[in-house]
């Protein structure tokens, strides 16, 4: 090792640290043992370092500093907690205000029940009587029922429509009533079915085997979409009186 390299390594060397590789530290020691000039420089370097280290650390700590630091941290923690509580209180107040508004609204409604709007009732009735099939379509849409209503039926005979229970499934049902005479009107109950709910092909086959006891059963498919079918259970000799062609003939 030459003196230049030794000087560089002396810059790196710090007693008690592992800044030099063991092999480098050994090589440096060997050089210092053989080179009085470098050994003297190393001694000066260490002595200077010791003096500088002592002086560098010789800083008086102001009285009460740890107490002031802790007090500042405590104040920060208190402020942080307050901010958190304010946020929680704000959320709770907002939730309470909403609940109060809902409660007051419900209470007000209970104490002030609305009057029956006869005009609205009259106009709905007139609209349904004037165009019953539109009423059915609107009802199906409002209840998100996709099965389209049958087009062939005469909706002036429509008496009622509702959701019926068929083998545990809710299906729309249209009730048509036609008075052949005052004492015994004929009825046709039309169940609106979809392929999602029932096996419509099996239904079509099975309906042909049903014996007529007091009522008849027919299955009609939607003219363009075989996913929809109408299961009609009716009284009377045939379904034709309920269909549009009969009405037109009467007119």
């Amino acid at each position, binding site marked *: 090792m030459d003196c230049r390299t030794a000087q560089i390594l002396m810059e790196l060397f710090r007693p008690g640290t592992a800044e030099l590789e063991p092999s480098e530290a050994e090589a440096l020691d060997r050089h210092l043992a053989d080179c009085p000039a470098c050994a003297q420089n190393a001694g000066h370097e260490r002595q200077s370092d010791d003096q500088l*280290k002592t*002086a560098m650390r010789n800083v008086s700590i102001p009285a009460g*500093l740890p107490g002031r630091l*802790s007090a500042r*941290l*405590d104040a920060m923690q208190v402020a942080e907690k307050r901010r958190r509580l304010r946020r929680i209180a704000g959320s709770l107040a907002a939730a309470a205000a909403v609940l109060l508004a809902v409660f007051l609204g419900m209470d007000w409604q209970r104490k002030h029940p609305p009057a029956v709007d006869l005009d609205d009732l009259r106009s709905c009735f007139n609209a349904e009587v004037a165009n019953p099939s539109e009423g059915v379509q609107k009802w199906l849409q409002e209840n998100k029922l996709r099965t389209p209503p049958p087009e062939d039926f005469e909706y002036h005979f429509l008496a009622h429509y509702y959701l019926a229970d068929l083998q545990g499934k809710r299906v729309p049902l249209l009730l048509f009533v036609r008075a052949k005479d005052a004492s015994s009107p004929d009825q046709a109950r039309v169940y609106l079915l979809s392929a999602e709910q029932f096996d419509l092909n099996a239904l079509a086959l099975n309906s042909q085997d049903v014996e007529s006891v007091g009522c008849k059963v027919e299955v009609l498919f939607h003219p363009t979409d075989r996913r929809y079918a109408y299961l009609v259970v009716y009284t009377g000799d045939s379904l034709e009186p309920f269909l549009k062609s009969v009405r037109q003939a009467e007119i």
Partner: protein
Amino acid sequence: MGFAGNSWSVQRLVDEHYVSLYRYAYRLSGSVADAEDLTQEAFCQAQEKRHQLRDPARAKNWLFSILRNAYLHRVRSDKLHHLTLLENMEEMPELPSQPLPAVDPERLQQVLKELPEVFRTPVILYYFDEFSYRDIAEQMDLPLGTVMSRLARAKAYLRSRLLQLEAEIAADGQRRATNGL
């Protein structure tokens, strides 16, 4: 050492490190008031960012890094503080042939103030002893070689200037003694 992120844990950092942190702050800034402000600010930032400290063993490095950044931010924003920039710091001062005698801490501070911060910081951290060269390089976000180079220059500068000041004071003392006769 529990680092659940609560103020008790940061309080423990205060207890363990406030002395060395304050000393570092004083050597960086040269002012008792600034040093206390910087130390306060460092611990406050540690409180706010406590979730960032993943390895408790690196707490001291982390705190020193926070303090240095706070100091640099202050120096950049405070236009009243001017650092005396030395010319030709890239040139290596000649290494004195004699060792340093005992160094007056205030005189050391006076010479430290002459150094630009990028030379002052590594030499302060070096003499605080617990930081390896890698620690210093990491804190300053510099390559190891750059840190070594700046450290060598800063140390040589300190020794030269302190010896020069000692000689000037000694010469001044002798002149006064002669005039007194």
